[in-house]
Structure formats: structure tokens, C-alpha cells
């Protein structure tokens, strides 16, 4: 679960990400320096009260967005997560958070959370993944803050303090193949590799850094446990295009890929 939060935290403007269960317990959390365990606890308690209240008027709520003078909070009702029950995913960011990118990233994270621990990866081997944290609620892997460090991508500021990053996506249950481009599920077939790389490239202007994640997810969904085949290329393009909210952007993406197939 922390691996999923790690991906969210790397989005520009995101300062904290956490998953709460139906009782308001923190199941997983990652945050920049200001977000220590005590603050997460306080915020989680208030969030649980917020969700309980919202539920009185909107039992089927899906997304809550709160805009503040200096930041934004996004809460997504995940539904039932295997081994954890009903959960809510929360992102807290500053004013630079890109709402469309964050929304797409949240959708990807929700899909992965719903699939369960096998799909989400195990970033905290010291405790069973998805098990509700017991007192103290903060998972050891997260409460043990690491010294300040700048990520190789340069996305995270030097003040970021948190546990060492979890294993990359390749640490999940063995993918069929990891192409040089890093696309899980690609095959040694140069045509397939080139096609998936082009998909990412064409998708990037619309979805930013989530493009590769979206393509990875689509490949896994379309050919689970098997090498990607070019016979699935049309389906993959349609699947991926649906992640682009703007009709104009979607049309441009489809046109650019169809012109090269």
C-alpha cells in the first residue's frame, strides 16, 4: 500500500497521502516533513468525522475536494479493499497540485488498491500488507523517518523526510518481461516495445507523468501474465484513450496513434 502512496507523493504539489479504513484508522501514510505521525493521527480523526457527516447527506459519495487558501485536499472513496474493508484514499497538497493529473493518479491508485496486496506490492514487509495498524497506528516503515534526501528525479524537495522509497513496480509479483523502456508486460518483440513506448509518448502531453503508469495498467489488464501482443494494440489504444478527460485531447491521441499503426 505504501508503494501506491509513494507514487502519489511524487506528483507535483502533493505533500501527503494516506489511506483510512471505515473506523478512521490510518492504514498507510506518507508525507513530507510537516506530516509527522501525530499530525497524521489528528488529521485522520477529523477526516473520519468529515466522511461520517458527508455520508449523512450523500451516502454514495465518491470524491470530496476541499479547496483552501494555501492548498487542496482530495478524498476518494475507494470502496472495499481486500483484507482491509472499506477505505478512503486522501491526498493533501499545496496550490500547485495539478487537479487533472491528481485525479487520474487517484483513479489508478484506487484500481490498484481494490485489486489487493498482490497487485499493490509489499513495501512494508515488517507487517502484513493492508492489515489495520494497531497501536501505535503508524506503520514502522513510515514512522521511522529517514534523513532528508533529494530524489534522483528531483521532484521532491530536499526537506522531504520519510522512509526509504519502496521497491519499484518491478518488485511486484514477477511481470512477464520488463522492456528497456520499463513497460511491464512488453515483449522482446521490437514492434510491441516500440508501440508501447509510442503510446506513452503520445499520452504524456495529456496525462503527464501518469502516462506510463496508465499504459502499464492497461497492458496488465489486457494480457494478464502474458506478453503483450500487437493484436491487442487497438483495444489498448481505446482503453488508454478513455483515461483522457478532454474529448479534444482524446481525439488527438487516437489520431496520432492510428496514423502510425
Amino acid at each position, binding site marked *: 500500500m505504501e508503494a501506491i502512496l509513494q507514487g502519489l507523493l511524487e506528483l507535483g504539489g502533493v505533500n501527503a497521502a494516506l489511506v483510512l479504513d471505515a473506523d478512521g484508522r490510518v492504514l498507510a501514510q506518507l508525507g513530507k516533513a510537516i506530516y509527522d505521525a501525530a499530525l497524521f493521527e489528528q488529521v485522520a480523526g477529523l477526516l473520519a468525522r468529515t466522511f461520517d457527516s458527508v455520508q449523512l*447527506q450523500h451516502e454514495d459519495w465518491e*470524491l*470530496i475536494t476541499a479547496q483552501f487558501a494555501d492548498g487542496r485536499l482530495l478524498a476518494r472513496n475507494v470502496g472495499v479493499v481486500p483484507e482491509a474493508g472499506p477505505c478512503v484514499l486522501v491526498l493533501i497538497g499545496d496550490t500547485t497540485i495539478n487537479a487533472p493529473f491528481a485525479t487520474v493518479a487517484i483513479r489508478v491508485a484506487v484500481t490498484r488498491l481494490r485489486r489487493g496486496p498482490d497487485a499493490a506490492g509489499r513495501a512494508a514487509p515488517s507487517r502484513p500488507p493492508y492489515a489495520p495498524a494497531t497501536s501505535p497506528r503508524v506503520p514502522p516503515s513510515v514512522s521511522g523517518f529517514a534523513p532528508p534526501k533529494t530524489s534522483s528525479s528531483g521532484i521532491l524537495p530536499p526537506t522531504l523526510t520519510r522512509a526509504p522509497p519502496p521497491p519499484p513496480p518491478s518488485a511486484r509479483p514477477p511481470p512477464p518481461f520488463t522492456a528497456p523502456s520499463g513497460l511491464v508486460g512488453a515483449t522482446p518483440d521490437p514492434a510491441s516495445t516500440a508501440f508501447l513506448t509510442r503510446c506513452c509518448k503520445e499520452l504524456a502531453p495529456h496525462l503527464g507523468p501518469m502516462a506510463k503508469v496508465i499504459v502499464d495498467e492497461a497492458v496488465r489488464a489486457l494480457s494478464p501474465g502474458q506478453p503483450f501482443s500487437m493484436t491487442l494494440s487497438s483495444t489498448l489504444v481505446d482503453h488508454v484513450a478513455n483515461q483522457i478527460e478532454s474529448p479534444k485531447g482524446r481525439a488527438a491521441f487516437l489520431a496520432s496513434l492510428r496514423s502510425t499503426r
Partner: protein
Amino acid sequence: MSELDEVTRIPEVKTATVCDFSGAFHGGYKDPDGESVAAVMAVVAVTLQQIGEQSGLGDLRSISIATPQRGRVLVRRGQRLLTATIEPVSALPNLAQTLEGGH
């Protein structure tokens, strides 16, 4: 023009309620349960305001709640809260922005 007049001119707004942070009901439009909405949304606004203060996010400005069928937006107007249900839900992001900038 009152807050309610302003918001009810928008076609996507189906109901509207004006309240304050204490949950007191100050007026409504087509909402048979305005007092209850006022109480609930005030609690939501107060708790989110507390989250904002504790997390360094500053003052609460607006809240959007999306459900599969409709949305709800709440905007802060000084010490008053203006909340409205929106249909279709796809209009929610734009309307939230519009209403937030409307004071």
C-alpha cells in the same frame, strides 16, 4: 443580489441552502430539508477548516462532493456558507470554481 439569487440563476443548481459555521439555517431554495443540510454541511466545513489549520493549508474556501448522480458544492462567503446541489455532476468542477470566485 442575495447569495441565493446569485446561485439559483445557474441552471445546473437544483437546490441551495445558506447557513453559517454554527449550522444555523439562513435560507434555502427548493430544499425541503434545508435545516438538516445546514447542520451537516456546517459540521463538514468546520472539520475541514480544522484540517486546513493543522496541515498548514490555510482557510477553507470551498468543498465539492461528487456522487454518481449529482454533486454538492459549498463555498465560504465570509462567515456564511452557501451550499448547492448540482446536476449533472460533470458540471461540478466548473461551478465550484465559478461560485468560489463569485464573492
